[in-house]
């Protein structure tokens, strides 16, 4: 999952980026509103964390312009001004949730994960598709209740596919959510990871969880379990 962090305070930005990376996210940062807006418009992110008090261009304005540019990723506001008026304005401008400073990272993480699930149409924290279950809080994956060991990349790809279960994800979509912008990308690696993931989830080739759509990408085609 690729997250954009727009925060002007360097220390906070760095620690936020480090903690998000440790939690398995791919993170890009921007130090002011103009930079944040540019990145948000030019690249594809799964989620943005935006501080409201930004230099050059206010967070509120960044959010409005991102939405005006048709960007639909969930946006989480970070705010030091916790007056309701500011919160409501932020949410009206197009943000999806807010966290007041100073925050516990765990709280922020929980909100981020909830927003990602919500944007994929999931209501609960454990995603289930057929026999596969993925718990985004513990990063545990089970097939028919048997835990499966996955590498970080494999987990990220599966999470991506499960969050968007039923939708087709192109290789570019997957690459963008896995790598930071200045990373040297090679789409063949995705094929390799998907191959490994298939073998780990379905050694006997009976579930066939991941479909390949030639020229278009991949799709997790198992039915979503709603409860």
């Amino acid at each position, binding site marked *: 999952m690729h997250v954009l962090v727009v925060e002007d305070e360097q220390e906070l930005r760095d620690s936020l980026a480090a903690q998000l990376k440790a939690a398995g996210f791919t993170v890009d940062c921007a130090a002011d509103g103009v930079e944040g807006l540019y990145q948000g418009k030019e690249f594809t992110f799964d989620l943005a964390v935006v501080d409201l008090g930004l230099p050059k261009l206010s967070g509120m304005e960044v959010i409005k312009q991102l939405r005006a540019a048709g960007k639909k990723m969930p946006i989480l506001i970070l705010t030091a001004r916790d*007056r*309701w008026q500011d919160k409501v304005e932020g949410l009206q401008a197009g943000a999806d949730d807010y966290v007041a400073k100073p925050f516990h*990272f765990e709280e922020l993480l929980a909100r981020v994960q909830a927003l990602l699930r919500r944007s994929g149409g999931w209501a609960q924290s454990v995603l289930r598709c057929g026999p596969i279950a993925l718990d985004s809080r513990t990063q545990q994956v089970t097939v028919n209740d048997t835990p499966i060991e996955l590498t970080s990349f494999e987990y990220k790809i599966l999470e991506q596919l499960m969050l968007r279960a039923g939708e087709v994800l192109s290789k570019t979509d997957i690459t963008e959510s896995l790598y930071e912008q200045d990373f040297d990308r090679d789409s063949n690696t995705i094929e390799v990871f998907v191959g490994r993931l298939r073998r780990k989830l379905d050694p006997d080739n009976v579930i066939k969880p991941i479909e390949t759509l030639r020229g278009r990408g991949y799709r997790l085609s198992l039915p979503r379990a709603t409860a």
Partner: protein
Amino acid sequence: MRARSLSTRLLISSSIVLLLFFGVTVLVFDAVYRNLSESFIGTRLDLQVANLISASDEEPGGRLLPRDTLSEARYATVGSGLYAQIEREDGDVMWWSHSLTDTQLQLTTRLAAGKRQTRRMRLPDGSEVQALSVGLEWQFPRRKTYNFIYTVAEDLKPYRAELQHIRQQLFGWFAGLMALLLVALAILLRWVLRPVRQVEQEIEAIEAGRANELHGDYPRELAGITANMNALLRAERERLVRYRDSLGNLAHSLKTPLAVARSLASTPQLQEQITRMDEIVRYQLKRAAMSGGTGLGNAPVDVKEIIEPLCAALTKVYAERRLDLQSEIEPNVRYVGDKGDLMEIAGNLLDNACKWCRKQVKITVRTLVTPGTRREGIVIAVEDDGSGIAADQRERVLKRGARLDERVSGQGIGLSVVHEIAHLSGGGVEIDTSVLGGCKITVRLPAP
């Protein structure tokens, strides 16, 4: 007791002065006229006596009788109101006018020659007569002299009637004049006091939020007050805005370092200290940002326009829990006061309710009518179907920073901020059990 209005004072005082003035004038006029008419009667009687004397002829035996040519017709008419009698000193009545017939009027008197006597007498029918008697010595031929008494009396009724008529006219005229003066005075007062009334109306408009300052062109005596009042209103509004801006900046510059510190803090003790610092900063900043003011010069806030975006925002934030968030707002409820305060109250209450509820949250807003005030306040009630707050804990949760349960993230300061704002506005907070099963918090915000 409330002080009487300026125009009432002026009208009452000038009416009293006018009444006194006209009263005295009427009394003086009345007295003057009465004196005048009485002296007029006296003169007339003198004239009648002189006429009678000059028309008297000597008769044999020392008698005097009026000549037949006496021109006064009223002597000959019964009950005409003019009576006369000629009497000799020895009591022998020489002549009396025909008009005296049946009147039982006793004109006989004792009087020496050269004396005059004026009498008032009452007739049996109640009417009053004034009589003038003149004593004189009459020399007959052969040097015989006798004393005679001439008496003429006239009924006072016509004069009295005249006097009464004049009095009525006098009173009528004066009363009319006074009414006219009072009307003129009232009109003048309206004109003179118009600027004062305009100030009053404009202040009312400001109170009701239809205007935010006094616009009228005022006379010199009032211009000072109105200009100062405008300056005060403007200063108050600007102060609040400036104050909140700098508080916002202060919050930002305190919170961000705190957030950094939190991300760096490695021990639970440090985390705990940061939490405490954060709560103190939050609480004190919120407290400082409360207006608690009169709301003078602020347009009344349309409550629906505040609550609905809040509900929409919270529905978004708690989307995952699929809450049933209902709002029941009385149509056209307006809050006279600060928009920020109202938002803090509703936001904190709703956020708490959303955290604690199972599924249902309901906010109700209605007007609060306080007797004796021109403006209306509001009552906000927020209820949920959560586990509620035990009766013995209710007092404590309103106090600063109290938390009943750490399970749900968020700050214990919400309710205490609500409590403080309500208190500042002269209202209060009550915690109750809701029909939904959870807790019901009612905040009363009376009109300032």
